[in-house]
């Protein structure tokens, strides 16, 4: 085997990776160093000016950006624990043997097949504080879409309802991979249900858990459709998430330079979050 044989096998994928990942990322970074307006002919080089502006809280885009990052942060912190714990519980139930199990599994997964546009429009009208059915049937007077914190409760609630099924199914697959013998052995050793969950189920789920936590953090940090459709950023842009602002800045105001710089800062935060998650789930038993 020549030294380059493995790389030759890697080459087809690497070519795709370069064309569709590395080059766009490089182009994005290059864009972020310019005052890059899609169709103004002059695209002056500004170096790190776009970044400096974003880190200056007194500037227009800086203030807007950190409000949006804060919104993304709040949503992520509020939704990820629920989107991990609740699907795990649902998966444990799904994994049992009982009549109507398939119906139960389908019911939990059903909302996930809906598109975000359907989910967003549906809940925008259900949640409307003055003419919505939620307040009507619960006898409440809560402005779910224009007040804080109700807007966050609404956005997190809708997202949980919508995406719970996906994480549940992934957990379910993980649960079914845990050999029954381990449970039986633990039972013979006299372990109760809780003990078996801690000593057999959770360790067996660890790889799945890392994936679910990471994917959920990334999905939550990329939240856009729900706040775009349900709250439209209300009240006063406080639920306008980072992706929402990036899309608005780049595609509506044509300010690609600032939008790219925002994307890179957001990406840096997400990479740091992923590193922390992998660190937290590292298997400490091995040296």
């Amino acid at each position, binding site marked *: 085997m020549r030294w380059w044989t493995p790389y030759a096998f890697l080459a087809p994928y690497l070519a795709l990776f370069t064309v569709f990942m590395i080059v766009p990322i490089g182009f994005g970074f290059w864009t972020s160093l310019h005052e890059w307006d899609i169709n103004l002919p002059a695209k002056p080089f500004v170096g790190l000016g776009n970044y400096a502006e974003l880190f200056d809280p007194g500037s227009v885009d800086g203030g807007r950006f950190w409000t949006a990052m804060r919104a993304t942060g709040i949503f992520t912190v509020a939704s990820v624990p629920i989107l991990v714990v609740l699907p795990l519980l649902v998966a444990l139930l799904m994994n049992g043997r009982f009549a109507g199990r398939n119906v139960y599994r389908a019911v939990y997964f059903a909302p996930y097949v809906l598109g975000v546009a359907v989910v967003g429009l549906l809940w925008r009208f259900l949640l409307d504080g003055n003419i919505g059915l939620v307040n009507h049937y619960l006898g409440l007077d809560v402005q779910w879409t224009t007040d804080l914190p109700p807007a966050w409760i609404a956005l997190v609630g809708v997202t949980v309802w919508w995406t719970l099924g996906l994480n549940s199914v992934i957990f379910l697959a993980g649960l079914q991979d845990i050999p029954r013998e381990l449970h039986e052995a633990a039972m013979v050793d006299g372990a109760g249900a809780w003990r078996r969950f801690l000593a057999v189920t959770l360790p067996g789920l660890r790889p799945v858990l890392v994936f679910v936590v990471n994917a959920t953090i990334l999905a939550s940090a990329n939240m856009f459709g729900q706040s775009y459709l349900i709250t439209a950023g209300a009240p*006063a842009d406080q639920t306008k998430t980072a992706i929402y602002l990036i899309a608005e800045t780049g595609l509506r105001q044509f300010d690609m330079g600032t939008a790219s710089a925002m994307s890179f800062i957001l990406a840096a935060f997400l990479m740091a979050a992923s590193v922390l998650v992998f660190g937290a789930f590292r298997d400490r038993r091995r040296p």
Partner: protein
Amino acid sequence: MTHHLSRRGFLGLTGAAGLTAAVAACGGGTRIGSGAASPTAAAPTFTGGEYAGPKVTLSYWNGFTGGDGPHMRSMVDAFNKQYAGRIEVRNVTRRWEDLYPAVPTAITAGNGPDVAIIHNDWIGTFAARQVLIPLDDVVGALELTESDFIPAVWNAGVYAGKRYSVPLDVHCLADYFNGAHLEKIGLQDAPADKAGYEQALSELKKSGVAHPFWMPNKWPAHLMFMSLLWQHGGELYSEDGTRALWGSEQGVEALNWMVRQIDDGYSPAKVAIDSQYAAFKNGQVSLTWDGIWQINDLKGNAPSLKWGLAAIPNIGGTAAAWSASHNFVLTAQAGKDANKVQAAKAFVDHMSRQSTEWAKAGMIPARNSARQAPEVAGLPQVKLAADVGIFHFLPALPGVGDVQSKALELAVAKAVLKQASPADALKEGVATADKLLADNKRKYAQ
């Protein structure tokens, strides 16, 4: 471990190589700091009359997604029939908020419109972005003159000394009322003055309407604010477009009046987007301000509602209402093909003569002569144009849309949601707006 490292090192290296390649590739296409735009080739002069060139297909974009859409489509069909075999116009209708961001990018890609309808406040932005080509010759051939138009509409089409648009119509903010509610308090029409309006609200509330006048925090809240600002004698932006003036005393008074409707109990607090209009259709709201483009929606979708339309009341002392106009423009994409330019001009010529037909879509014809035609004069919205002096427009400053959405609309929302007092919200908004205006001056001057 070493194996692991070397793999990572390899990936890092290839990544760096790819990045360098990408940067180098992009570098060629980007002129750093240069302002040289390729000048549009001089298009042939339009002299009116028939189109004589080979058959062309024109892409025509507009945002008539509401009750106005079917009328526009039938006008386009009529044109296609008349010009069959010579000019074919392909109608592309998408929501305005999707249309504007798409136009410049689509034109750059060659898949955009050849001719389009845009609002008056976008003309400056798109002209500065070289998305549009001038139309002075069409205006000459059509024998259109300023005296036949509402001056503000006419002048909005001029950027840097050249005309870029042919106005089609005017539309404004109006006061819709629930006839059954008003009857209960003995009124036939919405009151037109401040005292009468406030008294009516108070009586409506006593008559059992829990919240007669819902105050939105988003669309059309900023249109209400601007109308009230003008009524109080305020102005939006300085003549040269460098300063925002809407934080003035008059602006504070205007916004105070809006917030007071919540404090006085005429509006619920924190009304969600569009729900004031939905509630009006449901018969829960007595009075609501909205654009006249809703006329056809109410006719079609709220048949059991007894509603009427009036000019918005004069709250500030001088009658004024936010207005905008739809305008025909030719794009830089059409400008690349002389035949397309000629065909597009023939199309604009033809369509702008149909303003009577278009008035049936709920709009007010921009031409004074068209408004006097008997079949138009009887339409409900046309009475709003009795005094065209009340129509106030956003100035055609390049980039004004960004300033509005990032500063003015946000300030109005903050005040209506009670996150800040009107004075504080406006002060903060104006500081943002001034920075954006300075940015725009620099950006669009190049």
